[in-house]
């Protein structure tokens, strides 16, 4: 059997076509085949959330999908959030910068890609909802306080005294 399969996938609006081994994870495809290293790889078993991307608009773990499974689908990575020039940040990214919502930044791409669809569905979340939404993303700098503050800032809510 030919060890390679064709995958044609639209990533951040650009169509890519590659022949890859079926065992290649979507996370590795994005990083190594397409050079989109904003998608980070942490645990590779679906716990840390660093590799979260959007598949047809929904947040998924890209380490728990094979690249060939994305054939015909639409993927958005953290690189797709800003305008591409790096000059204009997505409002959520701007809020993260403003509120110091990151320290080392390793978890940040996954956190952002989790929060974008969450905020689409919950434009005015309370703190508990924000923390529940973040429960699938690990931050080892213990920076959750400022992540929550950044989300509240992005929603136009005043920062709570505790956050």
């Amino acid at each position, binding site marked *: 059997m030919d060890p390679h399969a064709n995958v044609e996938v639209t990533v951040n609006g650009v169509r890519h076509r590659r022949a890859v081994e079926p065992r290649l*994870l979507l996370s590795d495809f994005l990083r190594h085949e397409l050079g989109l290293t904003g998608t980070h790889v942490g645990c590779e078993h679906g716990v840390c959330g660093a590799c979260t991307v959007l598949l047809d608009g929904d*947040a*998924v773990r890209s380490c*728990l999908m094979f690249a060939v499974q994305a054939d015909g689908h639409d993927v958005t990575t953290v690189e797709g959030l800003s305008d591409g020039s790096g000059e204009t940040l997505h409002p959520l990214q701007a809020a993260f910068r403003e509120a110091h919502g990151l320290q080392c930044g390793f978890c940040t791409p996954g956190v952002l890609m989790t929060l974008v669809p969450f905020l689409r569905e919950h434009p005015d979340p309370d703190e508990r909802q924000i923390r529940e939404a973040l429960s699938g993303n690990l931050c080892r700098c213990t920076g959750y306080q400022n992540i929550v503050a950044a989300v509240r800032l992005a929603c136009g809510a005043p920062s709570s005294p505790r956050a």
Partner: protein
Amino acid sequence: MKPAPFDYFTPATLDEALALLAEHGADAKPLAGGQSLIPAMNFRLARPAALVDLNRVGELSYIRSERDGRGGGATAIGAMTRQRAVERSELVARAAPLLAEAMPSIAHPQIRNRGTVGGSIAHADPSAELPAVMLALEARFRARSATGERSVPASEFFKGLLETALQPGELLVEIAVPPLLPRSGTAFLELARRHGDYALVGVAAVVTLDARGRCTAARITFLSVGDGPVLATEAGKTLAGQALSEELLRAAADAAATRDVDPPSDIHASAAYRRQLVAVLTRRALARAFERAEGNPS
């Protein structure tokens, strides 16, 4: 780590998928949402020689009400239906509120966007919510192979740790959740360290009352306390014929914790702590289920 190589098949129909599974036998694994199988492959705990990817088999993804001519029928869920779709289904919320209540406890939205109902049930992880919920609801599972089809009740489906009644070449294709009887109430509760983590203990309860408020049937099931979903038969007996009282709830919770479960100790919780949680969660879930049954006379 990365998965070992495998032959990869993408059938477009159920018949194609069954033919591939028959052809490759025990070497092949069906790939549903992949949220348990792919991590196991990433760590090379699983090394299937072939994967039959069901994600292009559109006919296995649906939620519908089956009219059986005797009033409201079962709710039928295709095995490849994403957990997120069940979570958002108005039909499920109406016809199977226990299932709807349990859905948000299954891992995180990122997992539920890919994870499927059939995949979780066929995987039969003892800490998974869906097997316990389906056992409480007396769901029936339709299994198909290249040579035939059969229907297996949930009570005969779960055989042990990650083990089910499915034979090699057989695929779980549909889950049928029967309608609740009149004057029934349900509740799902679990305790996890953080929202979305594996539950230390979870409980699903279904109670049915007679016109005078006495319990005619009760099914209580647990997750994370054994090698599969556990049906609390002793607690159920305690409730039979009884009307709601604080003493009754305590007796049922005590029966569940001392006679129905034999929970394991692990790094997350000791057996004694799990027993304590079984008692507390059973009492709370039953109180809620009774209250809902009383408010649900039709």
